[in-house]
């Protein structure tokens, strides 16, 4: 690991860069999987008493606006040459986090559908700007060799906190918890940016050193750009499609699972701490495993694992649902496999796009990768889940379709294994 070598060389600026990146991305992802995905649903349905379909529509709008903003801002950053300017990116990140902190504090006071909609629009604009800004820090702060492990640390921290979260899935408790993390975060990042902008402080020297990291191949040339210049090509498009499939399958299945109390009350929403802690630990262990896999395996095998795990998870849920009327779903085997699948693909998502980029193209590439796969998939799966639920589709059939989708992607992967992805194999 390069981290160990930097630690042995006592290169404090680079070590600070690791900490800054892992901290920012962990909090950002924790915010996304708790406050955005679960808190806003509660705000709309419980606090504002809006119909579930209306709330889901608003959530889909959030995903769409975020997607469009991320794409637009990522392209803008690349054209203006901001991708390679570390201090500017940190200043932008500070602005985004400050806006998100204000929005988080204001969320429990949202009292009408109109203000909810305004909140969502502002939030999605901030999220959209945040995607290329934060992901493009990778080429400055994280060496290529360590990206899998750094992504693992981010994933493990975010999911551990999310799974072990002691409060209910209510906007008030999410808001309180997030502010406890975000306020110190804003202050620390503000301090770093403020001192770095002044020019004579030690932090200014640190940031200046970090800002030159991207010129080293160790940082700047992603794992998959050895023979290209980081342009978007068919191979990149193939990975966008695969990641889209993963996000779509995950979101489509989980949206229905969290609406089925018997499937979550013994796991993610258990009253006792033990099941939640077991799932949290499963996230940590499998995220670390995913970090190792990302580092050692070629990406095709990673995707086999992800789609395979999702297929097994939904097959297992389909079994449980088949037997539901007669049983109590208390076993944690399936949620643990689910946690493994989610941790694995999240690690890939945090490392993959940067590894397809150069310092000049990273803002655009990460925007395209994250927006087109993650946010578009969320938008579409939310819409489809609403349609299925309003059409009265039974839970078992819903999960069977999700499982079939996972198997189709797995089969597709096997079919194209000798096709476009063949060049992806590393020796």
């Amino acid at each position, binding site marked *: 690991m*390069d981290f160990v*070598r*930097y630690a*042995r*060389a*006592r*290169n*404090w*600026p*680079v070590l600070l860069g690791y900490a800054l990146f892992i901290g920012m991305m962990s909090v950002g992802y924790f915010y996304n999987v708790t406050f955005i995905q679960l808190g806003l649903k509660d705000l709309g349905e419980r606090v504002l008493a809006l119909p579930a379909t209306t709330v889901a529509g608003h959530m889909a709008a959030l995903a769409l606006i975020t997607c469009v903003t991320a794409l637009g801002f990522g392209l803008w950053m690349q054209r203006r040459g901001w991708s390679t300017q570390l201090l500017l990116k940190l200043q932008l990140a500070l602005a985004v986090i400050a806006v998100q902190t204000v929005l988080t504090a204001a969320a429990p006071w949202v009292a009408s559908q109109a203000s909810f909609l305004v909140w969502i629009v502002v939030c999605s604009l901030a999220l959209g700007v945040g995607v290329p800004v934060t992901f493009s820090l990778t080429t400055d702060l994280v060496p*290529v*060799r360590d990206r899998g492990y750094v992504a693992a640390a981010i994933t493990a921290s975010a999911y551990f906190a999310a799974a072990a979260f002691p409060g209910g899935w209510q906007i008030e408790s999410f808001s309180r918890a997030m502010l406890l993390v975000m306020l110190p975060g804003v202050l620390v990042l503000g301090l770093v940016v403020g001192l770095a902008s002044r020019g004579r402080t030690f932090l200014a*020297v640190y940031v200046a*050193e970090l800002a*030159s990291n991207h010129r080293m191949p*160790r940082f700047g040339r992603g*794992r998959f750009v050895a023979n290209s210049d980081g342009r978007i090509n068919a191979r990149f498009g193939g990975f966008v499609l695969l990641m889209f499939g993963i996000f779509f399958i995950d979101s489509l299945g989980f949206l229905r699972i969290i609406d089925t109390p018997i499937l979550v009350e013994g796991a993610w929403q258990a009253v006792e701490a033990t099941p939640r802690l077991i799932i949290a630990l499963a996230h940590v*262990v*499998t995220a*670390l*495993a*995913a970090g*190792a*896999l990302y*580092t*050692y*395996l*070629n990406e095709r095998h990673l995707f086999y*694992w992800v789609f*395979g*795990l999702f297929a*097994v998870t939904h*097959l*297992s849920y389909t*079994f449980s649902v088949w*037997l539901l*009327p*007669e*049983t*109590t779903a*208390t076993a944690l*085997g*399936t949620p*643990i*496999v689910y946690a*493994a699948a989610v941790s*694995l693909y999240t690690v890939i998502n945090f490392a993959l796009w940067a590894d397809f980029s150069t310092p000049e193209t990273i803002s655009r590439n990460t925007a395209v990768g994250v927006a087109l796969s993650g946010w578009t998939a969320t938008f579409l799966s939310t819409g489809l889940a609403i349609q299925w639920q309003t059409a009265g589709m039974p839970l078992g059939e819903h999960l069977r379709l999700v499982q079939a989708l996972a198997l189709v992607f797995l089969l597709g992967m096997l079919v194209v294994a000798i096709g476009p992805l063949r060049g992806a194999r*590393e*020796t």
Partner: protein
Amino acid sequence: MMAPGWLRLILCGLAAVMLAACEGGIYSGTLIFEGQHRFVAGDRLPGDVVLRAGTAEFKSGSRVDGAIYLVGGTLLFDGETGGDLVVFDGRLTLGPSSVVGGDLRLGGGSLSRAEGAVVRGQTLSAALALPESPEEPRDAASLARGLIGVLLAAGLAGIWARLWPQAPQRIAATAVRAWPAALAVGLLALLVLPILLVMMAFTIVLIPVVLVVAGITLLVLGLGIASLGQRLTQLASTRLGRPLSPAWAAFVGTLVLILLFQIPVVGQVAFIAVGMLVFGAVLLARFGTRDFHLPAEASRHEDLASYARPSRE
């Protein structure tokens, strides 16, 4: 040779499901998935009964020759069973005429017991009778059987290493050089396999596949332990100045590792860790048929000085 607790748990679960699926052969059993089932006086079920879901009612005078495993659903039992009554989950009601010939084992679920219900064995609070190895008295015969089993396994490892000398070396090299990847693959594979096997067993028609996959799983573990044992023994014997041949190293290494796994707690923890590591290594090295190549990024070596901060004028 005793397998570790978690492995015994998995094997017992698989055995219970598979046993229940067989009818009329060496074993007999009844597996109830759903619906209402009623057995009246004079009804007799040979073998074991597994109730996964639904409701089964055994009236006074009905009989189950084997054991009853309640995995889920509702069991209204007022008959007689020749074996244990084991409750994993679900609801059990023991009627006034009920007779449990063996033990009543309660590992979960709920119990309502009428006065007059007879349990000839013990009433225990654990569903599976997993023996506590340290306390379990072992007679000379069982020790001898265990020892023969260990020697047989070690002997097979030696023969394998002699016939295909490169395979254990490739597997061990993968376990040593790419240990994070081997551990990760082993962890994920061993996480998914039990769930997959149980679900396949529930389909009944896939039970032969389950047996094959379970056999392959044990084979993978065995090959991995033999490979790692061989590597460790070769290292140790070389250091001692008396290097062993690959076959003897595999024999001794396998023997030592298996005996190490018998140590309470430490041995079981070691088995889990080594099991994950070698399982992944065997898969990554394709059963020893090819070398596992490290990716370029992971194998790149750079001067430590290049990691230091740039010098300041």
